[in-house]
């Protein structure tokens, strides 16, 4: 452990090349259109496109640029394409409304007030046709906006604040901007929470962050996850593992729940191979089998000099066999079922694929998320209606498996049975938490943390009570996160006017040896 100070800086050379920061063909991207009005995931397959308003925009232009690049829609004869622009331009009035800059910028925000304001909708002399004509002629968004300002009778009577608001509105319509973001646990979670929260069980990004910390997720962990949030938990754990260790996404249903969100993360081969699936029944029976063996070994090993220790260990044994009793009736069948599960799983996943519209032409694969802003131009993808994330894996770069998550191998199951998982994360909004925890907690190594997310308080309160009275854990905490975002602008700093009212609740604790 000595001498690490000297080698520190050199570690920078061992990190992977920043290729990860480049937008590559076939990779998944998060398109942030008009500053969060619309968020869309896309796989950059060949000839992928997105419709913004009525205009089809080709996405090829994104490839080769780094993530974080900003693009603007540039109209052309047959559809439009994206042109990279400078990320600046936060001040839209730049060069347009300069004559008003003399007006106090900071303090007197409302010095022009709305006393004299009469909005009669006759302020603009440019007609809709005029503008459309300009657009088909390929006039740039900036030029259209300049024309709008020049032809507005009221623009210069507005407050600086109103001017900016006006320009922002016009810019969204005539010169939409797209930031291409790298999908990550944080950005995927935030995008779904904002636009389609039911897919991820209303899991908010601060809650996800909290879960990953409470569950001690890091390289070399072996994390058991019950993920009924579309794969968000599984993928987020895999991202933190970074190819070291493994996440076992378990399930108890006939059809395993989808974890397709894993496909949005552009994982490399080693990270992808750390995503494993296994039915709960297999994990439990393997664990019980091992417990019995080790209990026998233990009792042979035992010498009688430590009374309390013996009592404690006996208690553990009782609890374990208590668990085994509950599933005992099924243990005998599990062995024979194992293979059929594996087979069936594949079939089911394929049938899920079959449900998709089978337009297999090379079009954009997107998850279109609803826009909340009505004034935004309607943005549609060519695929009709909503689809599952990343359902067309065939054009993915090599190294990605067709379905996310390989099935657990015999060695995997044996290892977990002996060592236990290093932590457990449960995200199952429609299951009673105690029912789940009672079954899954014995799969953990002692001293391993567990974390149960739920969108309701009361079921977790009852689960916590059960865990207390059954003496199964210490450090039990039932918590609710609170998150607030701020607008920080000169003389206009305040919390956002709308906020999410809850991030749900999380019950966490540490599994102990004594039952």
């Amino acid at each position, binding site marked *: 452990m000595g001498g*690490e100070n000297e080698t520190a800086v050199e570690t920078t050379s061992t990190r992977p090349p920043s290729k990860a920061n480049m937008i590559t063909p076939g990779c998944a991207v998060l398109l942030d259109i008009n500053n969060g009005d619309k968020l869309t995931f896309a796989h950059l397959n060949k000839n992928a496109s997105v419709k913004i308003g009525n205009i089809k925009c080709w996405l090829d232009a994104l490839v080769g640029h780094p993530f974080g690049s900003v693009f603007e829609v540039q109209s052309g004869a047959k559809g439009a394409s994206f042109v990279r622009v400078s990320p600046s331009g936060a001040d839209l009035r730049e060069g347009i409304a300069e004559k008003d800059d003399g007006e106090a910028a900071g303090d007197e925000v409302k010095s022009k007030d709305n006393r004299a304001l009469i909005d009669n909708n006759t302020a603009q002399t440019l007609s809709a046709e005029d503008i459309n004509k300009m657009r088909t002629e390929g006039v740039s968004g900036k030029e259209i906006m300049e024309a709008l300002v020049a032809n507005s009778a009221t623009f210069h009577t507005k407050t600086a604040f109103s001017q900016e608001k006006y320009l922002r509105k016009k810019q969204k319509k005539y010169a939409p901007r797209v930031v291409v973001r790298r999908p990550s646990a944080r950005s995927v979670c935030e995008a779904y929470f904002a636009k389609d929260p039911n897919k991820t069980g209303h899991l908010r990004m601060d809650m996800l962050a909290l879960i990953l910390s409470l569950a001690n997720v890091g390289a*070399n962990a072996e994390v058991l996850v019950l993920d009924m949030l579309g794969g968000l938990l599984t993928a987020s754990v895999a991202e*933190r593992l970074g190819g070291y260790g493994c996440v076992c996404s378990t399930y108890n249903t006939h059809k395993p729940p989808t974890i397709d969100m894993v496909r949005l993360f552009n994982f490399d081969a080693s990270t992808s191979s750390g995503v494993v699936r296994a039915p709960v029944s297999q994990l439990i029976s393997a664990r019980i089998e091992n417990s019995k063996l080790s209990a026998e070994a233990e009792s042979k090993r035992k010498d009688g000099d430590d009374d309390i220790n013996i009592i404690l260990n006996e208690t553990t044994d009782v609890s374990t066999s208590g668990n085994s009793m509950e599933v005992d009736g099924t243990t005998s069948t599990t062995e024979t079922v194992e293979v059929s599960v594996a087979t069936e799983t594949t079939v089911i996943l394929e049938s899920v694929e079959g449900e998709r519209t089978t337009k297999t032409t090379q079009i954009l694969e997107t998850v279109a998320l609803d826009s909340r802003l009505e004034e935004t131009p309607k943005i549609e993808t060519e695929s009709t209606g909503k689809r599952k994330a990343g359902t067309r894996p065939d054009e993915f770069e090599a190294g990605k498996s067709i379905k996310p998550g390989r099935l657990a191998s015999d060695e995997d199951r044996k290892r977990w049975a002996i060592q236990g998982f290093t932590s457990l994360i449960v995200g199952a909004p429609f299951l009673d938490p105690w029912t789940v925890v009672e079954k899954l907690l014995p799969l953990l190594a002692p001293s*391993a943390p567990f974390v149960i997310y739920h969108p309701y*308080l009361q079921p977790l309160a009852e689960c916590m009570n059960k865990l207390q009275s*059954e003496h199964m854990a210490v450090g039990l905490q039932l918590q609710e996160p609170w998150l607030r975002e701020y607008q920080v602008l000169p003389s206009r700093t305040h919390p956002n006017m709308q906020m999410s009212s809850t991030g749900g609740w999380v019950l966490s604790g540490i599994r102990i*040896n004594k039952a």
Partner: protein
Amino acid sequence: MAMLAVAAEERPEKGRAICEGDVVIVYERHDRMKAVTVTRNGELQNRFGVFPHNEWIGKKFGSQIVGKNGAGFVFLLAPTPELWTLALPHRTQILYIADISFVVSFLELRPGSIVLESGTGSGSLTHSLARAVAPTGHVHTFDFHEQRANAAREDFVRNGVSGVVTVKVRDIQGEGFPEELAGCVDGVFLDLPQPWLAIPSVVRSLRSDGLVCSFSPCIEQVQRTCEVLSKERFADIRTFEVLLRSYEVRHENLSTSFDCSEHSSEQKSSEVSTKPPPHKRQRANEADEKDKPEGGLDAGDTNGTSKTVGEESKKPQRQLKPVIARPYPETKGHTGYLTFARQATLM
């Protein structure tokens, strides 16, 4: 026992057993725990008795240990960054899990990331940064206070994270981050009184699309920082506050006999009055709370003498009352504002 996990293949077949030299978290109660290095013939003494380390060796992490004089028991837990945050010696104000988890997540750290931190403080965040970037990344953490930097370094060695953490004494507000890291840093965390002074150096350090986070208690610091970030062409400048509210769970039997004819049924009436009056009952509850200020204190947690199966008989009665949750009365109202920004991806 190092805080960072080792690969499954390298783990002992028998699972995590406590060895000499391991750091264990001795858990008394949710809000009372202590990090102890296991030494041969060492001894821990607390209000629950005397605990000779020798008895710990070979036990599994997560085991309950009864004190020598039988006054009570403790649990021996494997260290994690979260437990360390609850057990560490406070040399400065520290960050807690709500802020820590949000920072690590928002900086989008993963194995292999290079991250800078200033100041190191008590090292509460550093351990979580280390876990996030291990085994191939690195945390470079800086504090201008030499003693503090040395103390933190000792902690990192002791907890087995020093392989991915370097501590240096440096005044980041004055000198900026070292030049040799320029352009290759994925994330920067600032907890400085005047973070805006460090921003030009952050610009030099970060790679394209890299992230910076600044933690400040006062809104004026945030305003000034945001102004500089904006001037330095950072993108996605966003400011958050994160808090956590902890709930206690208890059995509470609300009376459903709202007797509107108090004299017709003397039986019912006396039933009501045998309950302690509201004030006294609440006082008693309050006393419990003071004893259990944070998080869920579980029954299995109640220290004192070891409880076994004999206690079970008391349960059924208790189970009849409904389980009810309510927030602990006092909570953190503010820790600081977290401002994030992304290094512009220039053309």
